[in-house]
């Protein structure tokens, strides 16, 4: 680097220099890539921006979630992402758990990882979501949305639509599933 940044850093504080070099090295080692055998776990605050780095798999349809609050479909644009993030991300997670019988399928993965790290596998229960909590999600979503939208909601529904785009680029619905109705 220009003007020997690391040389100056080394002279100023050797420990700090090593910390910074380790920070960048560990972040690199943890980069998710099929060619990287060390990318098994992440370690906040070390990170690399690997999202959107792998090619998409060709699929016949994609998924659109529809949130209906008292008969009104709610979906905020990107600039209001902060307002919607706590329900938009969690709806996807809930759908994932619903597909696995309302259980957290990562329980077994955590157990496996803990045993590889020679740690007590009982922690897998803490790291994954309990079925009881997953089943409480619809009630939480309703209460959070009431607070988020600033009005008491009587009913919320979430649909999952399988969609594709025709040759004119118009979205077409292939089939729909009701994820929750409360």
């Amino acid at each position, binding site marked *: *680097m*220009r*003007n020997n*940044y690391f040389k100056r850093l080394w002279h*100023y*504080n050797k420990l*700090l220099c090593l910390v910074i070099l380790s920070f*960048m090295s560990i*972040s690199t080692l943890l*980069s*998710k890539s099929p*060619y990287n055998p060390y990318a098994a*776990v*992440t*370690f*906040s*605050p070390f*990170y*690399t*921006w*690997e999202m*959107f*780095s792998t*090619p*998409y798999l060709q699929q016949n349809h994609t*998924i*659109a*979630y*529809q949130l209906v609050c008292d008969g009104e*479909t709610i*979906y905020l*644009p*990107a600039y209001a*992402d*902060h*307002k919607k*993030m*706590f329900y938009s*991300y*969690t709806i996807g*997670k809930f759908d994932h758990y619903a597909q696995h019988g309302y259980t957290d399928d990562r329980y077994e*993965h955590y157990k496996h*990882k803990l045993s590889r790290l020679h740690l007590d596998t009982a922690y897998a229960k*803490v*790291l*994954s*979501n309990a079925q009881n*909590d997953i089943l*409480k*999600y619809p009630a*939480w979503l309703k*209460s*959070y949305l009431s*607070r988020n939208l600033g009005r008491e909601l009587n009913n919320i529904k979430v649909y999952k*639509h399988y*969609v594709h785009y025709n040759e*004119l*680029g*118009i979205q077409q*619905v292939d089939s729909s599933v009701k994820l929750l109705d409360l």
Partner: protein
Amino acid sequence: MSRAARQNINEYRSTIARVTMLYFIGIFLLRLFSVALPFQLNQPVLHNVNFDFTEGIFLGSGLSGFLLHNVIANRIFSLSLLLLPLLCFLQSTRRWPFILFSLVFFIYTLFNNLYVTHQQHYLHFAWLITIPFIASAKGFELLWQGARYYACWFYTMAFLLKVINGGFFQEGFGEITIKTQMASYIFAHPDALQTHLYTWLLQHPFWLNAGAKFTFLLEGVFMIGFFTRKYDKWLILAGFLIFAFTAFSSDVFFIEQFGAIAITFTSPALWKKWGRWLSIKPPTPKYDP
């Protein structure tokens, strides 16, 4: 960076600290009005460790549960996110408020990512720029410069990973991104102007696919930052374009990331101007030893 420029950065430390704290106040006000601060979440029932070791320790230690379920701790935690940047702004020449804020903000990044059930990595870079303010004068200049290099490094890595993992070479990448990432928006707003624009672009996918490659290359240009500071204002523009294109095509809003980039790539000359605007006269008062 020349010796004079390095000296300048130290001269404007107080200005940089104040502007950075205004940025954090903005972040937390945005989250307050978005009903996304810890006390506004109605105690989420789902979490996602996402194979993150630190998140696992945070959850396993019981600290996350304490901050979520203990009403007093939850309120103090939320309030401190709004008040600590203000305290740092007012006490910009002292180091201890920054140490406290840096610690609390790091816990917040873990808390947020755990309960939003998604790794919002951009918060980690926002946290990283709090570190230089806890250092002495000489350390500040080196760490501030280091934060800028780190930004160059992670954008460069983002570009290289797209090349290594193959996303860069998928011809229809931009088109598929719109189809998958914007599906829920298009479904909910079939008659919106933005949806009509997406429809037109899907009929002319060249622009989407070329746009995706252009965005990847914008990440790659941060490599220049390792060798010179001459093009820093253009790198701020590149950061803005990455932020804007990602918001348009992927339904995300990484304003925290763009803000942190704009701050770390700002030139000493501009800090001088902002110092005048904030009525901070160089040389700044002496910092705690």
